[in-house]
């Protein structure tokens, strides 16, 4: 019996071909657009998070207890080097890096600005977060007092490759010390904090400037996908301030949540469109065939069989639309993942929020599974109204009406 009902449902779904094609196009286009938007939102968020992790916090960062409140040298981690070695020995840790940070004043002959001087080991940073990918202009060279400057800070101080700057800060004894630096590269990380205030120099120059030992660091940054690691480190080093990426970057968490809300709203709107589309087609299709259903009931077909037929018709429409939507969606996402969406004309606005000007989409299997279940649910729901019409149908009225 089911085979016959399925056959009737299948044939009825394509009985009015132009109408069916129209609804299939509607489902496919809205679904593929939704997948593209979802991929772009996620891609944008992931890219931003990824760059923030690589350029600053890693997955986990460790500071001395009071350092994040009061960024003075006395709050540096004194035994950072042995600590780093200990952490490197944990199996799930992919990379560990030490950074020394000091806030102070960066000056040129004409301008000065607040800046944050970061002592880094370029080779280690490269392994940690492919640091060279952040280079916007010049070269990654911190030898001989070479410095890499954040792109926004460079604009503020009107710095170019080869420009000279003086950075002044307090050393470990409370004395004001300065270092003359030559700009070798301009860095763009899309991490607003770094782009607007960071100057990167060789960590060894930093030790000298602050008069601290090479065992000292302001931050230990760790790359690891191990979700248990944070708790392990918190327990192991209760005297230190162990923080996850999202604890350190609440904006990122907010952005992730916002993207989730945007995606949910888009998802809801598209599902509403799908629901209304199928509902409309099903309703018109049922109205066209009221006589047929009346006769079917008249000759003894149970309502439950008619219900199965109508739900199947709706599901067939939705499923066919889903297949086309998924194909177009994959093509869109692959294109956007490879070539991106170029929004250079909005570069200033986007960069000021820390976004890339070319947005690349990510592809997740969950896009397709979630959409599949939502479309199937929408199709079953959209059969509900036409079914009410059929349930109320009095066969005799239909039979009388035709005579």
């Amino acid at each position: 019996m089911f085979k016959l009902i399925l056959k009737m449902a299948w044939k009825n779904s394509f009985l009015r071909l132009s109408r069916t094609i129209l609804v299939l196009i509607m489902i496919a286009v809205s679904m593929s657009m939704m997948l593209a938007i979802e991929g772009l939102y996620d891609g944008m968020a992931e890219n931003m998070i990824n760059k923030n992790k690589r350029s600053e916090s890693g997955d986990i960062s460790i500071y001395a207890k009071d350092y994040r409140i009061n960024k003075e040298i006395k709050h540096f981690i004194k035994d950072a080097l042995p600590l780093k070695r200990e952490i490197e020995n944990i199996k799930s840790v992919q990379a560990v890096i030490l950074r020394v940070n000091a806030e102070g004043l960066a000056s040129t002959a004409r301008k000065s600005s607040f800046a944050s001087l970061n002592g880094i080991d370029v080779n280690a940073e490269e392994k940690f977060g492919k640091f060279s990918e952040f280079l916007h202009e010049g070269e990654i060279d911190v030898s001989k007092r070479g410095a890499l400057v954040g792109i926004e800070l460079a604009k503020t101080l009107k710095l170019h490759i080869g420009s000279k700057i003086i950075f002044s800060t307090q050393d470990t004894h409370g004395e004001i010390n300065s270092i003359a630096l030559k700009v070798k590269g301009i860095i763009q990380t899309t991490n607003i904090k770094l782009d607007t205030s960071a100057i990167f120099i060789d960590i060894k120059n930093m030790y000298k400037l602050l008069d601290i030992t090479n065992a000292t660091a302001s931050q230990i940054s760790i790359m690891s996908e191990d979700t248990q690691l944070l708790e392990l480190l918190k327990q192991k080093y209760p005297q230190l301030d162990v923080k996850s990426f999202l604890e350190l970057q609440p904006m990122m968490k907010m952005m992730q949540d916002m993207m989730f809300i945007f995606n949910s709203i888009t998802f809801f709107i598209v599902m509403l469109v799908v629901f209304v589309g199928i509902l409309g087609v099903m309703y018109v299709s049922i109205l066209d065939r009221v006589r047929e259903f009346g006769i079917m009931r008249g000759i003894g077909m149970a309502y439950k069989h008619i219900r199965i037929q109508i739900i199947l018709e709706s599901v067939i429409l939705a499923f066919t639309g889903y297949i086309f939507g998924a194909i177009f969606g994959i093509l869109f996402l692959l294109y956007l993942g490879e070539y991106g969406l170029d929004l250079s004309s909005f570069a200033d606005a986007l960069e000021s929020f820390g976004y890339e000007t070319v947005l690349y989409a990510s592809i997740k299997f969950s896009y397709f599974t979630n959409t599949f279940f939502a479309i199937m649910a929408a199709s079953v729901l959209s059969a509900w109204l036409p079914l009410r019409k059929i349930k109320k149908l009095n066969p005799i009225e239909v039979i009388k009406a035709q005579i």
Partner: protein
Amino acid sequence: MIQLHKVNKYFYKGETREIHALRDINLNIEDGEFSLFSGPSGCGKTTLLNAIGALDNIDSGKIYLDNKEITSLSENEKTQLRLEEIGFVFQAYNLLPVLNVEENIGFIMKLRGFSDKEIQERVLEIANILEIDNKLQSLPNTLSGGQQQRVAVARAVASKPKIILADEPTANLDSKNSHKLITMMKELNEKEKISILFASHDEFIAKSVRRIIKLEDGALV
């Protein structure tokens, strides 16, 4: 056997009784009958046929099919009764457009749960009698009116119901096709021992049936 006892049916406009469509109908129809409800338009032929077929409700009285009262059945029970005991042939054929002739004929058998083999054999048998065996794979819209009505008769007969109710089955057919259809239905009545009741003005049907039940203004005359 069908028995009607003091059957009354009214048609309403709002809450007012507009037409007394069936008036105190008392009637016995024996198994295997080949009968006609005749009378002028609006006399209640179709209403009576629909009441017997549990398609329409009556306002008073009782209708029995094989001593089982059918007027008090629920809608689902009536649907089941129509499926198992009654075959319908309508004026407008009412075949399912997406199914081919073979599937249309076997449709009720399928609903009743006959096996595919039983359905296939029975469809072929009936299609042979009604001379539509060469059209089994055709869709209804490719058939002539006469052929479509024969498919409708085949569908009604295939599952061997107790009774077939045919409402103006020849109204859309020319005289040649009408004669052919009624002759075939008579053969089926004799061969299959299925009661067939017509509601029609057709003179050829009137000549062919064994009993004519006349109605006027909703009452038997």
